[in-house]
C-alpha cells in the first residue's frame, strides 16, 4: 500500500488529475453501459407482460443473464461491409452516434455533490451534443449505399431538426423559471418538496419536452427512422455485429439521458418529494435513480401502447402543435414573472 502511495505522489500533478478524471469517467460509463444492458431486458420483460407473455426467461435466473448473452453474441459476429459502401464513413458512423450520447453525461449532476464537470452553460452543452448525435444516423444512411438506409437517414434528419426546436423552446421556459443555464442550479431551484418541482408550473413544457425527447431518440411511436415494416431497419440495416451494437448502445444511452434530463429539469432531480423524515432517509442518489427508472418506464409503456405515427403527422405535431404551445407558455412565464404571481414560476 505504501509503495502505491509513494508511486502516486511521485507522478506529476497533471498525470494525477488525468488519472482521477479517467477513473471518474469509468465510474459513470460502466453503470451506464450496465444500465443500457438491463434496459433492454426491462424493455423485453415489460412489453412481454403487457402482451401477456413471459419474455426472456431462459438464460440465468428469470432470464437475468439474457443481455449479457446478447452482447456476447453481437461481439462475436462478423462486421460485414457492403461492397459499394464508403467504408471509412461506414465505420466512423456508429462512433459518431455513440460519442455524443456518452459525452453528454459529463455535465449531468447525479446529486448536488456528484457531478463530473459543473460548467455554467451545461444545459446548452447537453442540447448541443444531442443535436450532434444525428450525424451518426445521417452518415450511416449515406455510407451504407442502400435505399432503405438513405430514406431512414432523411427521415431521422428531418425529425431531429423539427423536434429539437420544440425541445429547445421547452428548455428556454425551464431556464427562465430557474434563472440559470447550469443543470445543478436548475435542480436546486426546485428545492423544497414536490409542489416546487417545475413540472407543475411548466406542465405544457414538461409534456412537450418529454414527447420531443421520445421523438429525438427515435423511439416508438416516433420510430419512422427504423420502421421495420416500411424500410426494414432503416439506417442500421447494413450493420452487423459490434457496429450494430454501438448504434443500439447509443440509442439506449440517449434514452437514459433524456430520462435523466427530464428528472433534473422538471422532477426535482435528486430531491425527495416531501422534505420530511421518512422520505429524506433515502439517499439523494437513490431518489435520482428511482425517478429516472420511473421516466424510463414511460418509454416502454409508450412502445407497448401506441402504433407508429404516420410521417406527416409527426411533422404536424412537431411544427404546428408543440412549437406554438412552447412559445405561448414562454410568453406566459415572461409576463407572469413581472406580476405578483411570479412566485408560481420560480
Amino acid at each position: 500500500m505504501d509503495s502505491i502511495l509513494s508511486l502516486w505522489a511521485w507522478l506529476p500533478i497533471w498525470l494525477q488529475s488525468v488519472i482521477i478524471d479517467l477513473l471518474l469517467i469509468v465510474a459513470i460509463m460502466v453503470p451506464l453501459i450496465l444500465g443500457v444492458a438491463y434496459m433492454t431486458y426491462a424493455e423485453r420483460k415489460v412489453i412481454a407482460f403487457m402482451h401477456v407473455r413471459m419474455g426472456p426467461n431462459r438464460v440465468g435466473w428469470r432470464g437475468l443473464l439474457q443481455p449479457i448473452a446478447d452482447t456476447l453474441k453481437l461481439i462475436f459476429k462478423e462486421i460485414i461491409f457492403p461492397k459499394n459502401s464508403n467504408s471509412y464513413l461506414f465505420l466512423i458512423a456508429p462512433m459518431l452516434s455513440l460519442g455524443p450520447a456518452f459525452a453528454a453525461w459529463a455535465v449531468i449532476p447525479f446529486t448536488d455533490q456528484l457531478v463530473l464537470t459543473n460548467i455554467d452553460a451545461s444545459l446548452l452543452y447537453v442540447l448541443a451534443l444531442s443535436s450532434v448525435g444525428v450525424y451518426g444516423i445521417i452518415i450511416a444512411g449515406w455510407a451504407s449505399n442502400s435505399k432503405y438506409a438513405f430514406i431512414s437517414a432523411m427521415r431521422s434528419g428531418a425529425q431531429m431538426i423539427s423536434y429539437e426546436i420544440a425541445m429547445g423552446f421547452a428548455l428556454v421556459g425551464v431556464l427562465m423559471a430557474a434563472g440559470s443555464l447550469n443543470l445543478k442550479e436548475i435542480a436546486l431551484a426546485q428545492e423544497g418538496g414536490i409542489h416546487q418541482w417545475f413540472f407543475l408550473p411548466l406542465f405544457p413544457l414538461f409534456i412537450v419536452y418529454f414527447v420531443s425527447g421520445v421523438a429525438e431518440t427515435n423511439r416508438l411511436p416516433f420510430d419512422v427512422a427504423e420502421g421495420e415494416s416500411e424500410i426494414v431497419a432503416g439506417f442500421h440495416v447494413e450493420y452487423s455485429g459490434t457496429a450494430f451494437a454501438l448504434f443500439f448502445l447509443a440509442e439506449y444511452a440517449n434514452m437514459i439521458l433524456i430520462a435523466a434530463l427530464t428528472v433534473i429539469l422538471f422532477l426535482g432531480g435528486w430531491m425527495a418529494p416531501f422534505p420530511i423524515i421518512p422520505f429524506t432517509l433515502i439517499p439523494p442518489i437513490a431518489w435520482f435513480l428511482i425517478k429516472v427508472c420511473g421516466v424510463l418506464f414511460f418509454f416502454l409503456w409508450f412502445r407497448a401502447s401506441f402504433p407508429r405515427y404516420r410521417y406527416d403527422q409527426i411533422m404536424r405535431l412537431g411544427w404546428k402543435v408543440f412549437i406554438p404551445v412552447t412559445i405561448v407558455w414562454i410568453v406566459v412565464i415572461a409576463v407572469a414573472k413581472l406580476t405578483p404571481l411570479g412566485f408560481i414560476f420560480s
Partner: protein
Amino acid sequence: MDFAQLALYFYGTVLVASAVAVVTLRNPVRSALFLILAFFSAACVWITLEAEFLAIVLVLVYVGAVMVLFLFIVMMLDINLDRLREGFTRYLPIGFLVALVMVVEMILVFSTDEFSVEQFPRPDPHLSDYSNVRELGSLLYTTYVLPFELAALILLVAIIAAISLTHRRRSGTLHQNPADQVKVKSSDRLRVVKMAASPQVEQTEITHEEER
C-alpha cells in the same frame, strides 16, 4: 507551453487543415463533413479562449442545425463534377486576380497598428466563479440592446420573407384537417339500410361425407 496553449494550437491546426480539405476534396459530401469538423474545431478554439457560451452556441446552431440541412441537400444532389470543372482553366486568371487583390488588401489592413499584437494583450484568466453567460447577457441587453434588437427584427423579417416566398399552395394536393377527422360522427360516414330479408335463400349444404 502549458496545456491550454497546446490545445489551442492543436485545434487551430485541425481547423486550418479541415478548412483546406473543404475546398480541395472532390466528393462534396466529404467536403461538407470536413466543414462540420472545421466548425467543431473552431468551437474548441473558442473554448480555450474562455468563450464557452459562444462555442456551445456555435456547435448547437451551425453543427447541430445548419450543417445537417446542408448535408441533407448535398447528399441528395447528384452533382456532376465534370461539368463543374469545365471552365476551370478559363476562369483561372480571373480567380487568381481576385485572390491576389484580397491577399493584398488583407495584408494592408492587418499590417496597420490597429491590428498589431500589442493592441491585443492576453486577457487575464478569470476566476472559476466567472460566468461567461451572465457577462454576455448583461452586455447584450444593456450596452448593445439596440443593435441586438435590430438584428432580431431583421431575422424575423427574413423568416417571414423566406416562408412567404416558398409557401405556395399548389392545386391538386390533398390536405387533411385533423380537427374535422376527430369531430366526425358515425352518422356522417355510416348509413344503416333496412332491407327486407329475402324470402328464400338457397343454401347448398355440404355434408361431411361429400367433403371427403
